[in-house]
């Protein structure tokens, strides 16, 4: 399926859930926050929220800042 992840178009083979998508991207679900179509996915829902073709995904984390 086709997703927009952090502003870039990406083809992902059947991501299933947000959690599965993160693992596919080699990301630890505990260290990132995910926005799916502008809605924040709360931690407990990561494993159960499905990702669909055309979804817009933002994956963020904390970086150095003032």
């Amino acid at each position: 399926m086709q997703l927009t992840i952090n502003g870039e178009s990406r083809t992902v083979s059947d991501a299933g859930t947000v959690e599965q998508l993160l693992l596919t991207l080699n990301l630890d679900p505990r260290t990132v926050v995910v926005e799916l179509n502008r809605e924040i996915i709360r931690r407990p829902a990561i494993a159960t929220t499905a990702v669909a073709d055309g979804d817009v995904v933002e994956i963020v984390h904390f970086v150095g800042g003032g």
Partner: protein
Amino acid sequence: MLEIGGRTFKSRLLVGTGKYRSNAEMLDAITASGAEVVTVAVRRVNLDRSDEGGILHHLGADRYFLLANTAGCYSADEAIRYARLGREAGFNDFVKLEVIGDKETLLPDVAGLLEATKVLAAEGFKVLAYTNDDLITALRLEEAGAVAVMPLASPIGSGLGLLNPYFIRTIKARLSVPVIVDAGVGSASDACLVMEQGVDGILMNTALAEAKDPVLMATAMRLGVEAGRASYRAGRMPRREVAIPSSPVTGMLD
């Protein structure tokens, strides 16, 4: 003790984590500063370098009180979005709210700042609002529910020091919530002078990160903040336009 939004901290110095030459230097500088509150920014994960664990990989989240900022946001809506993402990271509901109005000076958009403060406070956020040194804005932010107001000493990253001691003093005198001067401090004497205005604390980043020796500067800043606080509490002597001798004027030889 510094109390913000129901949390107490021993150190009145809060520090940022941006722009350091290395993570090791950053950690040593934060340790030397004695800061308990450290700010972090919310940004996209770099998907092509996913071995990077973000800053939490280096900064023990249990060792410091993490204060997420909304740096780089130019509207209330954008800042609110970043604040919510920061809270979802799961450490606390404090946010250092920035709504920037101008790329040249990074001065705050006061209308957007007030709007975002109201929305976030209603959602239960503990808002620490980065603002300019305007008393009326500071009062409005307090009314809007900010748990701390953070007027600038001078523009972000400028290192120009305290440009308007009178306004900072006035804001401190009129507000009930803590006043933490954020941005513009360049050296330990700046930090000392800021604290001598009676404010509750200082937040700084560039002054440490861009010092030739960040660790030594962090020590200097810790001492500067302590000295300024003690000097404020001690109460300075009056300024006089005349000299008054310190030694006895009697008992002089003929």
